[in-house]
């Protein structure tokens, strides 16, 4: 107890209550951002974690690496770098085989109300507001296909509640965004250049302290005239080995991406932190 005052990295949260890292680096599920603050720091401590995520669908693949820091279970700062590989489609589009889009995402999230875990006597969820600034390195191509910008900012409000008596974690998130395919294809399009309101929903059933099964759904804008963009969803299993390491495996469906319909496949994510 004496050295507690110095234990900044207290790993004092309960297992799994930091969530995992979503695609853009925020604490959440795989696709959706949650109101939970990343890492295992309590309101008296700090938690840090890094993630590596691979998404492999029929005609494309994506890697995301990043890190997040949770400050006093109140503020989360995150960074993620995503590399989207067009594989053979790149050649078909005349960009070249394995042409890649790279995107940086800088995120911040603040918990504004409630506690998802302790407030079991209330219906109030934990509520957080967040922002994600995204910059894509392929501005020229984005403009050529009708995109408005190579960078954009998403704003979201997330509500997350652990229904502990039911072993069920539920999240609902509303996002204001102009991003095409999460920002991988830039921001705004010829059909719609403005912000639109999108929805993210998740539910996870806790089978044990270490193992959760769940599903997510995330709507996306449809800004391009030349290519349909669909909603995305996944079915996931997350395994929390301990407070330092977790693994997530999912079946993910991203819908149409440019000239290829029904892009579905695997989502694998490793997260490590303290």
């Amino acid at each position: 107890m004496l050295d507690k005052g110095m234990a900044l990295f207290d790993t004092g949260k309960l297992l799994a209550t930091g969530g995992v890292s979503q695609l853009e680096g925020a604490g959440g599920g795989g696709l959706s951002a949650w109101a939970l603050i990343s890492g295992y720091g309590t309101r008296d401590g700090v938690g840090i974690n890094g993630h590596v995520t691979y998404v492999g669908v029929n005609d494309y693949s994506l890697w995301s690496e990043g890190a997040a820091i949770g400050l006093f279970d109140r503020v989360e700062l995150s960074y993620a770098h995503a590399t989207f590989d067009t594989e053979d489609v790149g050649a078909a589009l005349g960009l070249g085989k394995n042409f890649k889009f790279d995107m940086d995402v800088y995120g911040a999230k603040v918990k504004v109300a409630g506690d998802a875990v302790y407030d079991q006597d209330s219906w109030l969820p934990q509520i957080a507001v967040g922002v994600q600034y995204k910059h894509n390195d392929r501005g020229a191509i984005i403009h050529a296909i009708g995109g408005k910008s190579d960078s954009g900012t998403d704003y979201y409000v997330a509500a997350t509640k652990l229904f502990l008596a039911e072993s069920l974690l539920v999240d609902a998130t509303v996002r204001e965004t102009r991003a095409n395919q999460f920002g991988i294809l830039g921001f705004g399009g010829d059909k719609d250049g403005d912000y639109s309101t999108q929805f993210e929903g998740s539910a996870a059933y806790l089978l044990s302290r270490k193992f959760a099964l769940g599903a997510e759904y995330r709507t996306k804008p449809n800004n391009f005239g030349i290519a349909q963009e669909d909603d995305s969803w996944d079915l996931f299993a997350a395994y929390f080995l301990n407070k330092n390491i977790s693994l997530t495996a999912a079946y993910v469906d991203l819908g149409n991406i440019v000239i290829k319909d029904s892009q579905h496949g695997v989502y694998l994510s490793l997260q490590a932190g303290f």
Partner: protein
Amino acid sequence: MKVRKLGLAFALAIWGAVLSIGIAHADDTLYQDLGGKDGLAKIASDTADNFLADDRIKATFDNTNMDRFRKLLGEQFCVVAGGPCTYTGRSMKDAHKALGLDNADFNAVVEDLQKAMDKNNIPFATQNRFLARLAPMQHDVVTK
């Protein structure tokens, strides 16, 4: 657009399911599922053992009469689980106000209780039903 409506339907279905489960649980048999008075006394005693073996919180009990503590913890568990018992100890607020406990301490207590319930073969879902009733005590126990 069709898919977007599906997203909304998905969200509403989850909230609906959650609400109906919540209502269905209004009366339950948690006390029996935790082994009744004897089962809860055993869980309380094992939890107290875990506290004393837990480097994070054991110093809190340096001046505690553990026999009395075990008895009171058993009474409290019984009451919280919905059993026909009377808790004869102080309120949670009074009992903890001088201790200066933080959330990490509270979570350590939760983990020690989980370990005790594991030892007594309480299924995970039943453990969570019990923990859901105890979790709001964080408001009174944590003062730091």
